[in-house]
């Protein structure tokens, strides 16, 4: 199981849970199962055609998955995933 950290703006869809444990071999699988478990997350995380919204940045152990293999990046049991809004700006 990988740990997924849920930001406050998404916690309404996870029943208030801040950290959830999800199974999956890749980042994409983990996100799929996350949305399957908490269907309320779909509108926030996915575009209407089911791809990851560009307003969501996904970090695997603090690295943006776009710098790795994106959704195909392998993920292990001790890894942690953080979902954050794409809101970088100095």
């Amino acid at each position, binding site marked *: 199981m990988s740990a997924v950290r849920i930001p*406050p*703006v998404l916690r*309404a869809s996870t029943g208030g849970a801040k950290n959830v444990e999800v199974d999956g071999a890749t980042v994409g699988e983990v996100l799929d199962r996350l949305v399957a478990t908490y269907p309320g997350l779909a509108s926030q*995380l996915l575009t209407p055609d089911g791809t990851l*919204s560009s*307003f969501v940045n996904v970090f695997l152990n603090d690295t943006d998955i*776009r710098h790795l293999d994106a959704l195909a990046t392998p993920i292990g049991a001790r890894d942690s995933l953080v979902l954050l*809004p794409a*809101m970088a700006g*100095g």
Partner: protein
Amino acid sequence: MATQTLPPEIGRPSTADAESRPSMAMAGADRILGLRCRNCGTREALGAAYVCAACFGPLEVEYNLAAVAGLDRATIERRPPGIWRYLELLPVAEQPRRGLAVGSTPLVRADRLGPALGIAELWLKDDTRNPTLSFKDRAVAIAAERAREFGITTLGCASTGNLAGATAAAAAALGMPAYVFMPADLETVKIDHALAYGATVVPIDGTYDDVNRLCLEIADETGWGFVNINLRPFYAEGSKTLAFEIAESLGWQAPDVVVAPIASGAMFTKLAKGFRELADLGLIERTPIRFVGGQAAGCSPVATAWSRGTTVIEPVRAPTTFVRSLAIGNPADGRYSVELADASHGSIEAIPDEVTAAAIRQVAGLEGIYPETTGGVTLAAAEAARRRGIIREGDRVVALLTGNGLKTPDARTLGLAGGRAAPGEPGLAPVLRPGYASFEAWFEGNA
């Protein structure tokens, strides 16, 4: 959603106003409607919220301009200098009683630099002269006042350098503690600057994007008011004051072309919003304005997307530029910046560091204005856009110099050959003994 309950006075017209303050009857409650998602349009109550609960898109402040339709040029012109003369168009309930003197910086005609860049009518918006020497004072003034109105007691920021000093100084002036997070390897003057105001400065061993990611999490957990994160909808609006001042300085007209640097793209896009709102209120005529952006070639995700004709921004993982204030690899308003450049028939230029350094020396030497690296990027972008034909013969062009050269000392010598200056040459002469003979020997070329 981290929305807070608002204290009852928020958004209500205030009763006690000094004579010189903008009238609160005009700046009353219904001119600010709340927050609205830029992506899906979902509305949200006013608060320290920045992400749409429906789609994760960015929230923006929504105004009811009809509520301030009576605002006219003469009213604004009678007010004291500074950003609050445009209060009706700013997302705060009222003009703060305390705070720094921000804005009303000069717009100067660059009659020597302009022709050198092939631009006959070039104006420089000199924001090297704000209280902490950059335009960030504008954004922070709005965010800090909103923080106070929301009952937030600690300010924070994730900084590429200039925001650090701006946040620390504003917090000092308001008597609030500040936490400033920045990449550990930034210019030491920028770190010292923030320290001087008594902020807690937290250096992070990483890029700006690492700092920003960390601060997103800290903002969520602490409830501190991070000016550029959970106060971002308000912060971003502060940059509109650049547009307001430019238009007022030009006799209530918009220029043909605006050239500005892009990091996150917040300022670039809000400039356009500022001019649009002036036109909406009839304070200026609605004329087409081309927006030209500049980025450093060593971190140019927005310029790259623009040149490829896409709004999809590929983040830059490891910026390689000495333009630290623009080194954001993952810019929040990148896509909107590309859209603005495209829709306005502008461009977004990527400038190599050597060209940036030379452009700083050029404007300093020809106009006596010394901008930081972002200013070099901006002027080089203006020249590039002129070569491309985006800037045309006869255009009135305004270039924004958004930070002071004293913040980026490395730029002074980049690309220059070493060695000592001969008499009459720009540069550092050798150290002379304090006797006239020593001076004479050097001056006559016999040193």
